[in-house]
């Protein structure tokens, strides 16, 4: 008999529909005179919303990850990029998107939908070149604006740094008006920012609820839900969905509804998973193991406040603080500072910050071990991972490492990884549960 009650998430179908419509809307944007733009998922997607209600983004990393989930198409895209002379050890998402453009195949059907402009920020070395290469590959002079956001960790943020980033975003608004010929509506910007803050704070709350025992959500499910925030965090629809999700998860916690009915060991992970091999999480469930999340899952979309005791809590939104934006400058500065607070910036700046955060999550979420993906496909999310490993081992938290690639199946060994998991489970004296 199962240890806990378990049932599927009721809002699951809605999440799927939102995602499918997002990709469809991007492809069909021009049919009604809408605007298409592409850029990274860390971009402040509230900014282009001031151009109108018919502005459709395509964020690069989730698109690359979608391809990564399909090994057959991944190989086509990766080989197309490699045939053009790009190295195999470049960012996997980037190679997948480039390949899609080279092949002129949109993963969600039809030809690659050309954007009206690129709007990017430099979160890592790959992102800095990504859209320059995209423009070369597309062969057209697609307008390109890039924002330098590398101002250091949040604990060292000052007014000059905020000015530097916010100033570029204010410039981008002037630029967008020129390249699209549209007049900018600050009120739409404000609403986008309010919704972005709602999305990211609510996502953090969903993640925080996973401290409960049993965990109401497993990480494989978390992946399918956080992705909406990576698509368009400033969208009202997605903010509303996260509110619905939060309420359902709260109910699951109150009624002890588990993600894994036989939860007996909680683990966390690190970096993106190999997207083509998410069944690894189902394999773990066969041991009664639930993965409760990671710095990546919590911090990519979630925005958190650090409390005086070093713990983290979902950030309070401007609405909750009674903040009402009156000027464009004020709003842009706010959303810049909000985003620079993202805990996923920390690995990019200092391995010690990363390690501290990872250890905190492990303890606060009652984790018994970490399964660390040595992700060959992403330099950003893996910087400092070995320091995090050592920090966890120092705290007596065992770490299993396995090699793979978030979006290139050619670098993942399923049999070898399962063998490592089996050995690791023995160290916890865990045998597989009866089917």
């Amino acid at each position, binding site marked *: 008999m199962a240890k806990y009650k378990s049932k599927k998430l009721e809002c699951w179908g809605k999440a799927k529909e939102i995602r499918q419509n997002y990709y469809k809307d991007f492809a069909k944007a021009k049919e009604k005179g809408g605007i298409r733009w592409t850029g990274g998922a860390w971009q402040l997607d509230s900014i282009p919303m001031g151009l109108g209600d018919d502005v459709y983004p395509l964020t690069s990393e989730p698109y690359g990850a979608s391809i990564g989930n399909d090994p057959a198409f991944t190989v086509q895209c990766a080989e197309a990029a490699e045939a053009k002379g790009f190295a195999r050890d470049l960012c996997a998402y980037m190679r997948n998107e480039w390949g899609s453009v080279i092949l002129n195949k949109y993963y969600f059907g039809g030809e690659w939908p050309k954007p009206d402009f690129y709007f990017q920020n430099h979160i890592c070395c790959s992102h800095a070149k990504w859209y320059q290469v995209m423009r070369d590959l597309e062969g057209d002079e697609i307008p390109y604006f890039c924002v330098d956001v590398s101002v250091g960790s949040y604990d060292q943020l000052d007014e000059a740094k905020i000015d530097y980033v916010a100033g570029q975003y204010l410039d981008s608004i002037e630029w967008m008006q020129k390249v699209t010929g549209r007049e900018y509506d600050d009120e739409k910007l404000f609403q986008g920012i309010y919704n972005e803050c709602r999305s990211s704070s609510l996502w953090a*709350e969903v993640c*925080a609820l996973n*401290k*409960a*025992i049993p965990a109401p959500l497993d990480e494989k499910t978390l992946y399918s839900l956080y992705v909406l925030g990576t698509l368009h965090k400033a969208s009202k629809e997605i903010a509303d969905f996260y509110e619905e999700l939060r309420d359902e998860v709260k109910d699951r916690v109150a009624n002890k509804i588990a993600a894994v009915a036989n939860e*007996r*060991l*909680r683990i966390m992970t690190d970096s993106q998973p190999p997207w083509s091999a998410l069944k690894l999480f189902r394999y773990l469930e066969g041991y009664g193991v639930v993965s409760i999340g990671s710095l990546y899952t919590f911090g990519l979309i979630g925005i958190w406040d650090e409390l005086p005791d070093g713990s983290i*809590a*979902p950030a*309070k939104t401007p609405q*909750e603080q009674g903040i009402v934006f009156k000027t464009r400058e004020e709003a842009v500065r706010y959303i810049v500072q909000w985003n620079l607070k993202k805990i996923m910036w920390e690995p990019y700046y200092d391995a010690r910050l990363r390690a501290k955060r990872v250890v905190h999550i492990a303890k*606060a979420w*009652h984790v*018994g071990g970490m399964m660390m993906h040595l992700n060959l496909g992403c330099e950003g999310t893996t910087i400092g991972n070995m320091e995090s490993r050592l920090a966890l*081992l120092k705290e007596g938290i*065992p770490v299993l490492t396995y090699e793979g690639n978030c979006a290139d199946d050619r670098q993942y*060994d399923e049999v*070898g990884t399962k*063998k*490592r998991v*089996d*050995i690791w489970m*023995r*160290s*916890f*004296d*865990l045998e597989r549960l009866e089917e």
Partner: protein
Amino acid sequence: MIIAGIDVGAVATKAVILNDGKIIGKGMATTGFEREEAVEAALAEAIKNAGISRGDIEKVGATGAGEAVEFADKRFEDVVADGAGANFLFPQAKTVIDVGGEEARGMRIDETGRVVDFALNERCAAGAGAFVEAMARALEVKTEEMGELSLQSDKDIEINAQCTIFAESEVVSQIHLKTSKADIARAVHEGIATRVVSMVRRSGVEGEVALIGGVAYNPGFVARIKEHLGKELLISEDPQIVGAIGAAVLAVGPEVEFKAPEAKLDTEKEWR
């Protein structure tokens, strides 16, 4: 109680028979393509050496490609069997290094032989016996003579290539430079030892170290590992059968109950 352990390795299949904790028979066969045949051959040899009949065996544990042992009562991952086998032979061991034909493993074990942490090198032959074999061919020396040959040298030359294939071409270059075979053999063993120790340090080196697996027969490799670790090594008379011993021991091991880590639920915080 008579128990058997069978380790189906990439190169060799080993069988061992224990009676009330004492090894009474061993057998080995080349694994080849027909693993089931190798299993039967190794077990038959062990049974003959033990002076018993097949029906006397009460439990069988298997490891390695354990699915080839269809009659096994229990199967265990190779790392797990290594830990148990090393603990059986050397209860004082806290670290185990297993270097076989195609794979190298390092692990820390507790006082019961349970693996606490581990590291694997499963995709690169440059840290395993296959590297020695390839270099022996390049030097036109028998594989079993490489170890002793390496001990005749006290000169350090470097073979820089990380990959067996490229290292072979470096060896050929050294031969053309008239570097002695002994010096090259020493460099080959130094290369494997460096890679193995680097891997083992990931899971940690604690207390006494047991060295098992076929490459433990190689005195050249043993000398280099001892130098890198700065420790004496615990090596059994038959380091290749340790996994099989572990599989046998585990086949009748006590049932262990899982204990979940202590977890306390935080007082629910309200953020809204």
